[in-house]
């Protein structure tokens, strides 16, 4: 039987978990790590690396190493200026205005890069669990919009996974914590990860996890804290040495790596040393960077970033209509919540000691595994009632955004509202479907447009046009418009404004499958070569030992076939190697050489 797993596809690190004997456990990757860096690298030799091996060679290969790809998922090129400042690789605008990564002359959609990470996770999970993994629950930040969710789902498909559900990361964390809770509770989840900040408020009771409100900042995460430290280092270095390192990509990557390390150290130590020898070369000799950063200084640098979490928390509390004093539990998620200043801020705002008894890097994946269990019928007594995290509606007269579904409405849900025409004898109306919180349509995100045509002749304001929004449990939106008198109706299924076209996805699925096949073939070739090499060496040894007991012609034949096999080993033709191996074994019969394992 195939297995469904839970995947936390993070900005900097990804993590996976599955139910084993009904209990959620973290699945380590092939390298034995419990989290996998969300990094994909393309080496000059044309090799593709994913995870730690990719991250390790980043310094040597900044242009070919793709990190933080999650920040580009489902986004238009125009929306990613802030992201571009952080990355060392090239992102271009494609014909449709989407963001595309360019490496070594090839363009990749962010979905494809994410799929490469998912593909590795899938393969590693299969190796660990010893069964086929075909389905997954993947988590996204609560504040991801429809296009970003769709992109994540597509990445799963490209990697060969049936994505059972996309769930919000903070919700997932609450699932992981709340399994054993019997009483009614209100939980606030504070999730500060590598690239995004999310806050969610959930009501728990009798196995039902009801999301009450979500809010967040799509542009706030650990990367921003690293960047604050890097900016400080740049300024210090410029002041001391008069050199601006900002234009040197390798120096920048070294600074980023050092900044991240210092940030981590400062979670447990009062000061951290930053020591980067040979950071720049000048006519007067090499320049080194040697600085000390204290926790107090770091708190100063990160205070404006931490302050950005306050607004979303307050908004979420207001939306959920609960006061801070009514929060029963505070759950911390994401590596950034290890930072003492972050924890202090949460404690100050909510007035409760936050819980962190499940590893904040793993808690989201664990919740996703539980949800996968719910959807496969393996977990019976739990149900997650999620919400639409952004409002949905249509454009009405004057460019006004009229909401049909308010943000934080429980899903599945369905709403109908009656509209009318704005002009006499109007023959058609355009339904412009939008998502967002602005009162003006122009500032929200277009999800789709369609026309309702052949309206009967009528004065303005007379026709009744029912517009229905329908969101299923997967968050897929259907919009229908119906002219009540004539019964004339049109509908669309929202597919995500800037997403990939179906044929593009199919092409990518094929590429991914081919890559998986190629990887499989390469492994097979390596096995065949190993076997042949060992065999050739053993037979050569026996031949030297028993040479005297053989006929001259037999000995010559064996030596010849050894040489031929060795020649074949140098090629990439597995079949040729197999044939030559068999031929050698046959000739070596006279040595009574018996192969231990038959082919």
């Amino acid at each position, binding site marked *: 039987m195939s297995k469904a797993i839970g995947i936390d596809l993070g900005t900097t690190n990804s993590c996976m978990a599955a139910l084993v004997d009904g209990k959620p456990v973290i699945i380590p990757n092939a390298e034995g790590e419990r989290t996998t860096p969300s990094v994909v690298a393309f080496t000059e030799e044309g090799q593709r690396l994913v995870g730690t091996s990719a991250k390790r060679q980043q310094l040597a290969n900044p242009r070919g190493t793709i990190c933080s790809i999650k920040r580009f998922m489902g986004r238009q090129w125009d929306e990613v*200026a*802030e992201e*571009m*400042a952080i990355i060392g690789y090239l992102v271009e605008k494609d014909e449709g205005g989407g963001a595309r990564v360019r490496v070594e002359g090839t363009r990749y959609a962010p979905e494809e890069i994410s799929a490469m990470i998912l593909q590795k996770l899938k393969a590693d999970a299969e190796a660990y669990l010893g069964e086929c993994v075909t389905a997954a629950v993947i988590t996204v930040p609560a504040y991801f919009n429809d296009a970003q969710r769709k992109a994540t789902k597509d990445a799963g498909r490209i990697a060969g996974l049936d994505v059972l559900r996309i769930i919000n990361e903070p919700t997932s964390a609450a699932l992981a914590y709340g399994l054993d809770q019997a009483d009614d509770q209100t939980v606030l989840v504070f999730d500060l990860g590598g690239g995004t900040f999310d806050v969610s408020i959930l009501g728990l*009771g*009798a*196995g*039902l996890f*009801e999301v009450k409100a979500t809010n967040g900042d799509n542009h706030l995460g650990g990367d921003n804290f690293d960047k604050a430290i890097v900016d400080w280092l740049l300024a210090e270095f410029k002041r001391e040495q008069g050199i*601006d390192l900002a*234009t040197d990509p390798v120096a920048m990557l070294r600074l980023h790596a050092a900044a991240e390390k210092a940030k981590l150290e400062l979670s447990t130590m009062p000061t951290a040393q930053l020591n980067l020898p040979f950071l720049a070369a000048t006519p007067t000799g090499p320049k080194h960077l040697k600085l000390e950063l204290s926790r107090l200084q770091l708190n100063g640098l990160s205070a*404006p970033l931490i302050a950005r979490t306050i607004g979303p928390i307050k908004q979420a509390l207001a*939306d959920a*209509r609960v*006061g801070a004093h009514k929060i029963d539990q505070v759950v911390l998620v994401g590596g950034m919540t290890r930072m003492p200043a972050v924890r202090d801020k949460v404690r100050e705002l909510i007035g409760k000691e936050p819980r962190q008894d499940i590893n904040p890097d793993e808690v989201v994946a664990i919740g996703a595994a539980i949800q996968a269990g*719910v*959807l496969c019928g393996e977990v019976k007594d739990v*149900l*997650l*009632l999620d919400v639409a995290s952004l409002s949905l509606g*249509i*454009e*009405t*007269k*004057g*460019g*006004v955004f009229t*909401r*049909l579904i*308010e943000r934080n*409405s*429980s*899903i*599945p*849900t*369905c*709403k*109908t*509202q*009656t*509209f*009318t*025409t*704005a*002009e006499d004898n*109007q023959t058609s*109306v*355009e*339904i*412009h479907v939008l998502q967002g919180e*602005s009162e*003006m*349509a*122009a*500032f929200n995100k277009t999800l789709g447009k369609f026309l309702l045509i052949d309206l009967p002749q009528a004065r*303005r*304001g007379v026709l*009744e046009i029912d517009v229905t929004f329908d969101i*299923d*449990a997967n968050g897929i939106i259907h919009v229908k418009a119906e002219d009540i008198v004539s019964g004339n109706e049109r509908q669309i299924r929202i597919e995500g404004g800037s997403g990939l076209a179906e044929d593009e996805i199919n092409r990518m699925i094929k590429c991914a499958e081919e890559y998986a096949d190629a990887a499989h073939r390469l492994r097979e070739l390596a096995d065949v070569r190993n076997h042949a090499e060992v065999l050739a060496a053993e037979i050569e040894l026996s031949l030297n030992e028993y040479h005297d007991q053989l006929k001259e012609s037999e000995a010559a034949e064996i030596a010849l076939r050894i040489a031929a096999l060795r020649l074949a080993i140098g090629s990439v033709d597995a079949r040729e190697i197999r044939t030559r191996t068999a031929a050698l074994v046959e000739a070596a019969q006279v040595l009574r050489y018996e192969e231990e394992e038959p082919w």
Partner: protein
Amino acid sequence: MQVKRFIYATIDNRSGKPDLAAYKAGGIDSAPLEIVCYRDIAAVVSTIDINQFGLGLPGEIANGEQEESHKARLLKYQQVNSFLFGQAGQNGMLPLKFGFTASNDEEVGRVLEQAYVQLRSYLDRLQGTMELVIQVSWELPKILQGIVKEKPELAGVDPVQAGRLLFEAAENKKRQFVAAIHGKLSALAKDCSDAPSKTEAMIFNRSYLVDKDKEQLFDDAVDAVATEFEDALTFRYIGPLPVYSFVNVELNQGNFAMVDKSRKILQLPEKASWESIKSAYRQLIMAYHPDKNPDDPQAAQRTKEVVSAFEIVKAYCQSLPGFGEQEKPPGEFSFAQEEVEKAFILDDKGAPLARAGRAGHPA
């Protein structure tokens, strides 16, 4: 002609009524302003012809052009509110969302009665405050030139790369400006609210909620920050205004058919406590949800019905006096026809109920 009462604002009535006679211009379409009182709060209203107005009808789908008459009425609504704001002095006044109407004065009175607790607390919270708007624009070409001067090394980089770096630097500058301006002002304000930028060049459009007695301090701070950045930025300072951006109250008349249907979907008796309503909802969700019934094609539909029914019942209960933000709403809520029809459903988020409520309107 079909007339309705248009409600501009709710005002605090404790220290006397505003002198509406002094306001010669009148309300929308020059109709005289009048006042409807309930206890120590009051609504300022005028009569409108809804056939002329287009209000009360369901929303009209955009055709791209904005009507002049609509703009004129919106302007009038703002003028009336500015006048009331001037009259209110240290008392609170609450501009209601443009377009709220009631059938007659009796209904206006019922609105005030039903929503009294919420309106009163809003009035108290916003008492003696005003809204000040800061809009800041920049000239991007000038900013970019400045950046190039600061970073001459950009000239040597290839054009695509340079363009990107320039763009990033500009974004950074923008964030620094916004942080610097907000940093100077936020301490003097009680709250702030962002509005979308009106032009491409606008980098900041934020309303601040400021105590009236801090107006001078705030003015000085705005002056100082505008002077500090006068070479780079253009400031527009609007106000004092009524606190439009800090109240968002919508009211809707209780619709018995809808509330009754919802109650029956939740399988509730005619009177129920908040606890029993919640528990009934949870049980039904657990039983119906498609995740629990993957093979039942009806599951999704039934869940949607339960979800909407609960939203309606919840909004109804929350609109009743005594619900508030307390730990546990006291007693039982009645779903009897006369109770529901008396209720006005207030939602300061913009109302899930508003939509459903409107279905009952004649088109």
